[in-house]
């Protein structure tokens, strides 16, 4: 378990209300490292009165910013915060070009065990998420409005139902919002799985021959946005071009996950320190973007501003904002092997290259970790990675394809030792990342 990291308790944490009236989260939220459970620290959850006092009423899509909301989203370059960073306005235009109508989904099925930012938003700013969802539905002319979240996300679900009850009482004419439970699997948040489930099938990914924005739930245009993306739509509808882009990070530091909102003036190093990194030594590397993300050398990463375009220019991505520093004593290859096994086990088991390829990759990594693999196994690993790349119906296997080569590069000195039969001292005892064990 994560207790092996020996962090000091987090008494230094204090919730801090953001002075900015247009902040997304307005404070820190701290969760235990594992599970989707209750937060241990956080700002006061915002009820409808607090929300309206802070931000005022939701401008209707045809109100203050009018039909121009999609143009505003384009102008402020809002991108998808489920990890893809795909321009939100492009999805909206694609759906409008297909005639609109149909379904709009808030995707709250936060599959990455290390992530907690979507839970933090739903539990602390549910009305901002719902505002964005309703503005998107209104702009698309959608008649079906859905929140999709894991069956086991109890704290988020009760916050959501409380917020919906408040809205029904205050705004009886608002569209009904369906809250639909997703199986407690990593893959349930994949957008084609959502479309398939809402169309009456199993919540498993499919190969999509046309984009959901054109042909989604029941064959009708469908917009699926991550809840953070929608919360930002809720803000942009109010601020217009004054929107201040920030990033929601979930930093995993030992036995807790800290969700914090930072601007581009903050470096990754500062964010990790602020999130309570209490080990005596600096991390050696950091995993950016979660289990399907990529490792980066700590020295290079720590100096980067928390700003997706800058991180992209440095050859990486923040993905859904997940930041996992590697303790100095840990073996990055062993952590990578454990994560790869987790990704293999999380496969929907529908596509051959994912079903067979990910376990094969994990098997070779295990050999490297225990020091029993040589150059020929490394060649085999590289071949498997190349063969799996881009070959699932969804992007699940592509996550492993990003993760593994980044590990071979960032931990190349350790790799050479492992291949000589001299594994790291800590290779047999991974730190126990959430969900990975």
């Amino acid at each position, binding site marked *: 378990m994560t207790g092996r990291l020996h962090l000091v308790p987090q008494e230094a944490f204090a919730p801090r209300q953001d002075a900015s009236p247009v902040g997304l989260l307005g404070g820190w939220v701290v969760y235990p490292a594992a599970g989707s459970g209750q937060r241990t620290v956080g700002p006061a959850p915002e009820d409808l009165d607090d929300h309206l006092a802070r931000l005022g009423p939701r401008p209707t899509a045809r109100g203050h910013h009018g039909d121009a909301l999609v143009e505003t989203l384009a102008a402020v370059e809002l991108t998808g915060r489920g990890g893809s960073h795909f321009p939100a306005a492009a999805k909206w235009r694609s759906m409008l070009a297909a005639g609109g109508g149909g379904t709009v989904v808030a995707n709250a099925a936060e599959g990455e065990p290390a992530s907690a930012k979507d839970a933090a938003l739903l539990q602390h700013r549910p009305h901002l998420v719902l505002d964005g969802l309703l503005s998107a539905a209104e702009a698309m002319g959608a008649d079906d409005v859905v929140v999709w979240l894991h069956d086991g996300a109890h704290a988020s679900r009760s916050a959501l139902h409380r917020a919906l009850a408040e809205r029904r009482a205050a705004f009886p004419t608002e569209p009904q919002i369906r809250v639909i439970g997703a199986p407690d699997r990593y893959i349930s948040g994949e957008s084609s799985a959502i479309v398939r489930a809402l169309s009456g099938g199993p919540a498993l990914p*499919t190969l999509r021959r046309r984009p959901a924005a054109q042909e989604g739930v029941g064959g009708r245009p469908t917009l699926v946005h991550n809840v953070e993306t929608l919360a930002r739509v809720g803000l942009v509808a109010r601020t217009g071009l004054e929107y201040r882009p920030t990033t929601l990070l979930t930093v995993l530091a030992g036995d807790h996950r800290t969700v914090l909102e930072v601007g581009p003036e903050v470096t990754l190093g500062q964010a990790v320190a602020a999130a309570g990194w209490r080990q005596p030594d600096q991390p050696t590397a950091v995993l950016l973007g979660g289990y399907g993300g990529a490792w980066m050398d700590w020295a290079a990463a720590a100096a980067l501003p928390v700003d997706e375009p800058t991180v992209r220019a440095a050859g990486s991505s923040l993905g859904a904002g997940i930041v996992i520093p590697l303790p100095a004593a840990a073996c990055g290859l062993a952590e990578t092997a454990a994560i790869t096994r987790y990704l293999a086990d999380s496969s929907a088991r529908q*596509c051959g290259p994912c079903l067979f*390829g990910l376990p094969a990759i994990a098997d070779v990594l295990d050999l490297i970790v225990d020091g029993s693999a040589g150059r020929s196994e490394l060649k085999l690993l590289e*071949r498997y990675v190349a063969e799996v790349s881009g070959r*699932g119906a969804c992007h699940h296997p592509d996550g492993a394809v990003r993760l593994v080569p980044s590990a071979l590069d960032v931990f190349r000195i350790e790799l050479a030792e492992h291949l000589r039969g001299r594994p790291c001292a800590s290779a047999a005892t991974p730190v126990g990342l959430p969900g990975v064990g």
Partner: protein
Amino acid sequence: MRRRRSAELARLRVDPVLCDGIGICAHLAPELVRVDSWGYPIVPLEAIDERDQKQAQRAVRGCPRKALFLEPVPAELPTR
């Protein structure tokens, strides 16, 4: 050499959910389809040349799982 995109151009695609790795496609279209370490087909990303059209169509028709299809080379549309 870059090909000009037109409505005529198509590429071969696999629906990996339907595909069971039977491998008939690799026999019917040996110049287009190779198989990976687990026997599943890898198809070219590029549009198919005129001279390869016939074997592509053979592979599509011959797939017992109906997992292969020809797709017009897509315009720049969001897929997610």
